[in-house]
């Protein structure tokens, strides 16, 4: 049975994510060395340096997820898994070694599957991250993606016509979750 809500912490590094917000998720996926890596269910990394640190600091609950070539270094140890090969992304020149860690996290969330995926502190840039996000929105039309910022700020018009995308702040997210949990 898929999780009700997966939270993904991106790499923007600008938003403080409230602990009450994180408690709404069934699965927490963190990108690399972001602050929440100590409480995450999964931490995605494609950086050798970060992997070395994460393997030392990891708690029992957390599973580090790394691409095959990095995973090979820690294959004998517990708490690490190889990133799945995302068949759906094959046509998108998907390369887990060169993509951002937040995209790895989001791809893993989509692969695990959930009716709702909420991304926090997630960087969007026109060169790579926005097109990649758009591709995932198209590939998973049955999943509702919530782009959550600490404060809502300007409206994101990039995904205006995309039905499964919503932009909200953390307060709105908590209200959304309350109604969503009640409906289940």
């Amino acid at each position, binding site marked *: 049975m898929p999780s009700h809500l997966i939270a993904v912490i991106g790499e923007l590094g600008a938003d403080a994510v409230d602990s009450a917000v994180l408690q709404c998720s069934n699965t927490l996926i963190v990108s690399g060395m972001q602050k929440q890596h100590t409480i995450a269910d999964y931490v995605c990394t494609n950086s050798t340096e970060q992997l070395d640190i994460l393997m030392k600091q990891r708690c029992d609950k957390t599973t580090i997820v790394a691409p095959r070539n990095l995973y*090979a270094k820690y*294959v004998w140890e517990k708490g690490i898994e190889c990133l799945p090969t995302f068949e759906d992304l094959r046509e998108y020149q998907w390369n887990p070694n060169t993509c951002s860690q937040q995209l790895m996290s989001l791809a893993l969330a989509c692969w695990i599957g959930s009716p709702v995926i909420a991304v926090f502190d997630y960087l969007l840039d026109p060169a790579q991250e926005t097109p990649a996000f758009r591709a995932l929105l198209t590939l998973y039309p049955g999943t509702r993606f919530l782009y959550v910022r600490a404060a809502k700020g300007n409206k994101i018009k990039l995904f205006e016509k995309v039905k499964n995308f919503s932009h909200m702040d953390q307060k709105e997210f908590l209200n959304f979750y309350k109604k969503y949990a009640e409906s289940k």
Partner: protein
Amino acid sequence: MQNQNKIGLLKYHVVVEWLPTCRNRSPRTLQHRPDLVHKMNEYVKKIISICESYKNPIQVDQSYNMLGIRTWWLEGSDLYHFLMTQEQNKLNVIPEIGVLNQLTGKLVMFKFSVDKNGITLY
């Protein structure tokens, strides 16, 4: 009982090659070669005995495989030691390891080489 529960979590898989004279023998050939069957049984016993020296559960697959004897390991450190000491135990492990990915439920396969400095995976 505790060990039996852990068997379901066995993560690593390697195959120990048969002795040179026993390799790639079909079951039909083996029916007419009790000498080889005896040798193979003794060899399996030897592997089981080595595996029993480890604290954590290891499963030695008793079903016949022309390539060799399949073994499943719970702890990476045990398998690492087994691979590093294969020469002194006069064993030859086929240089391919399967690691169960708990996310996908599939084996991730790696080729490997062993030298005095350690094990390198490709």
